[in-house]
């Protein structure tokens, strides 16, 4: 899996815009146009009467089943080389039984929202999406046939695509429902949603990746076990993300600060590149934007911009990444807000537009994530990044020297066979 693929699965809209700057080795079946078409069709599926759900006890049945916790080491074991049809079948079997349960729980969570909130079109859209996903996957949890696995995997790919923008859409919906729900309740709901979503996607993407690996007989990336890279080099990933963000920055501001990467640049560890990529990109976006805006605010236009220093450390228990900028820091009052799911950066103007249109969506994404937005850190980029960081027992700490800059410490535990207890 190269940068382009992983990136695409997280930010399809960004990808489509920036396809030119990333290398693309997608298989022919997944061309851009197909993607585009799928996206618009998705939201026009036939409306199911909502009342139908009330008498449908499948959701409740599945939601009440216990989640069979999977350990990351088990996921790895599914894909342990040599990759055989048996292990693939095990993986598929696991996904088939597990995913409907988790999806059903998500549906239940929606059903427990206040009624008025549930009628909000954005929230309803995501709710229906989960419902339909559940319904399409549920049959597979019964009997099986040898061809099912492949078909199942294709379905999963489709679903992963369609669920790509859940969070922004939800965020927008909740913004509109501000007066109907306490912000703590919203935060709790989103926390659960995001946490569960990460788990669901992990299972799904691991299966998709393993199927593809087995199909293509891909032995080039032998460091990869599905979506897990056993030899992930953080320094290299930092460089990639930093370059990408620098381009965005140049596009928006006409300049970008230099990035210095030091410390244990040769260190490698086992991790899921998509996660780290997301976190790093968010953090680097914040750092670069803050650096430029702060320098400009102080009237300090003379180059060079103060560099961003990223240090990598390979410790006993974890990998630490420190991102140090001179972007003016975060004021004490704002500090508490940094991890809030705050929706203030969504402009009023874009509310009326068709949310399924790609181009407004992209601009929204950029706004919501902070570029072009008013203040540092307000959006959902940071809470999401923190969730990813913590997902496998890591941590995320921000230290602000107000008036100077910020240091962000990202600590990620080594994921290896010995971490048997780390459950998803």
């Amino acid at each position, binding site marked *: 899996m190269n940068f382009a693929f992983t990136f695409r699965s997280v930010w399809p809209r960004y990808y489509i815009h920036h396809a030119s700057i990333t290398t693309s080795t997608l298989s022919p079946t997944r061309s851009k146009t197909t993607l585009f078409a799928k996206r618009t069709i998705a939201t026009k599926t036939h409306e199911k009467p909502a009342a139908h759900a009330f008498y449908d006890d499948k959701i409740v049945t599945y939601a009440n089943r216990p989640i069979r916790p999977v350990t990351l080491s088990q996921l790895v074991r599914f894909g342990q080389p040599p990759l055989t049809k048996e292990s693939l079948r095990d993986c598929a079997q696991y996904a088939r039984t597990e995913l409907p349960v988790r999806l059903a729980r998500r549906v239940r969570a929606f059903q427990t929202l206040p009624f008025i909130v549930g009628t909000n079109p954005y929230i309803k859209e995501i709710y229906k999406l989960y419902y339909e996903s559940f319904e399409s996957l549920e049959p597979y949890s019964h009997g099986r046939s040898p061809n099912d696995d492949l078909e199942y995997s294709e379905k999963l790919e489709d679903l992963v695509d369609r669920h790509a923008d859940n969070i922004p859409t939800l965020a927008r919906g909740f913004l509109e429902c501000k007066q109907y729900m306490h912000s703590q309740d919203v935060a709790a709901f989103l926390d659960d949603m995001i946490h569960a979503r990460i788990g669901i996607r992990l299972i799904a993407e691991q299966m998709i990746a393993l199927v593809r690996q087995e199909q293509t007989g891909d032995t080039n990336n032998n460091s990869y076990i599905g979506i897990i890279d056993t030899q992930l080099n953080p320094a290299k990933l930092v460089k990639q993300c930093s370059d990408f963000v620098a381009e965005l920055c140049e596009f928006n501001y006409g300049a970008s600060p230099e990035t210095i990467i030091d410390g244990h640049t040769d260190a490698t560890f086992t991790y899921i590149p998509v996660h780290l990529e997301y976190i790093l990109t968010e953090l680097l976006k914040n750092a670069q934007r803050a650096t430029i805006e702060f320098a400009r605010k102080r009237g300090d236009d003379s180059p060079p911009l103060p560099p961003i220093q990223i240090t990598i450390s390979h410790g006993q228990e974890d990998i630490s990444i420190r991102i140090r900028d001179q972007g003016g820091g975060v004021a004490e009052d704002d500090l508490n807000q940094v991890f809030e799911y705050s929706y203030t950066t969504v402009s009023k103007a874009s509310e009326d537009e068709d949310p399924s249109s790609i181009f407004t969506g992209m601009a929204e994404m950029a706004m919501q994530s902070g570029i072009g937005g008013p203040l540092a850190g307000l959006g959902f980029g940071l809470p999401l990044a923190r969730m990813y960081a913590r997902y496998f027992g890591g941590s995320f700490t921000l*230290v602000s020297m107000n008036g100077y800059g910020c240091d962000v410490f990202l600590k990620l535990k080594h994921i290896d066979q010995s971490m048997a207890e780390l459950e998803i």
Partner: protein
Amino acid sequence: MRLLLHHLTKRQPLHVQSTTTTLCHAQYRRRFLTTTSTLCQNTSTHKNNNTNEPRAATLDHSIKSSHSPYHFYQTKILEEYVQRPANASTLRQYIFYGRHMTSDRLVHAANWVRNELLTRLAHRIRDFQQLPFFVGMNPHIEFVYRLYWGAFEQLRKQPTVKTLDDNHAFCQCLKELLDDGQLVVPRLALGVSECAQHFGGGNSHGNGNGNGHGNGNGNSHHHHHHHHHQQHHHGGNEESSSQDLDRFMNRMLRSRISRRMLAEQHLALTEAHDQDWDMMGEGENGYVGIIFVRCSASELVSQATRLVRHHAETIYAKALEGEEGTKTKIRPPAIQVQVHQDVHTQGLQQKEKPDEIVFAYVPEHLEYILFELLSNAVRFTMETHSNKKGDSSSSSPYPPVKLTVSANDTDVYFRVSDQGGGIAPDVYKHLWSYQARAPTGQFHHFHQVQKMPSSINERASQAENLGQVHLGMGLTMSRILAEYWGGELQVMTMQGYGTDAYVRIPRLGTKAENLGFEDHPAITPTSVQPGQQREGANHGNNTQDQPVNWYHPSVIQRNTPIHKSDAGDGWSKSCMMLD
């Protein structure tokens, strides 16, 4: 006066913009601060804990031993003072008061200081009395307890100060108490070491389950001590008792600093009054008692850097040279200092040196903190890279220690970054806890130390005498000092690479002293009405018996409420760090 009040309430920097040369800080201290500076002795004769009894502890025979039955009833004396609230003041109030010193005010101040010291001592004595019984029986703890009682009695027996001569006698008493007070910390530390395992079962067990294989929650810096181990001696609440010792120590140390602050300030003001120094106007050298209104971040930093460098060159270099048997001179890691321009959003710029960061503070506090942090950074850098050989070039083979200083309207920030290999996770988890570290013998070296140094020069000399021995309290003391005026100290580490320490110092002088008020679960107020604050600094109604409080809010507007500390683990909530 009105102008000054106006000046103060406008929250402008307090330094008077004059062109007089300021005395070199060290010179001033030697001239005006007459507290003793006898240092610790690093000889084996003091391994034995029967050091000389401090004068104060021998004052009254009846309190010589807490075993005496008389002792229980004698504590009634305490009641009067325990019930009073301790009055925490802000730096501005200290400065304002110091600048308006007259003979009359000096006499009143003496009485005020006396009462305040008695109140604060009484609170701490009550703390001791609340300790579990057998902890109080520990000889070191008992020593300190008797010391406090002696100080209390000595102060109480001081007559009300009515004249300047009375004041001088009072000052003499203060000096003695300051002297004796330097004995407190080493003994407390030893006592804590020995008692820690009894104070809640100890944390040495069950460490393996720490944060290693957690769920989704990451490492929180303000972690809660969840210990799942057997209860050993008492049936008390496991979790709260494990924090009790830390809170106890924090309160002790904070109160100690506060009493020293009161005493030293009064001594200095008396001295200044005697010498007829003009605290205001053009003649001012910047010192109001022990507060320096023109602390320059750069100067403080360069002084600390110099001391640390000297210390490293003499101590570590010697040790390393000896081991390797070479004559190559070992150069300690460079300390690279970057002082960033002061950022003012309210448009106020300094006329003299726009880039300099100047603020009012008690320099000895900041010096201590910087010294500790820098010497730790240097020490660990040298230890981690100990295989580096020096060469004939003048640059050091060690990766440098970087010190960054920045400031804005309200705070001054210091960041010390080193590449000393970082802190191991199990050490980091208990970095700020006395109790957790005590069972592993961390405070063992306090056997070699009799007195705790009170100035940076004393500290440096002590460090030199101790050589490579480390007392284990530097970091926690630094944090207590940083939090004293409402600042903070945080440490982040990247294990395998290095550590970063962050210090935030409020510069407006509007935060009240942090005396570490928390509700001690064991204290049951007797004659205090429910709802009335015991150890709060909100001024209740002044009773007639209390002397006039020159820091009463009717005199000066209190700008911020009293700084309530406690993020749940005995330390203050952070304003600059977020998990």
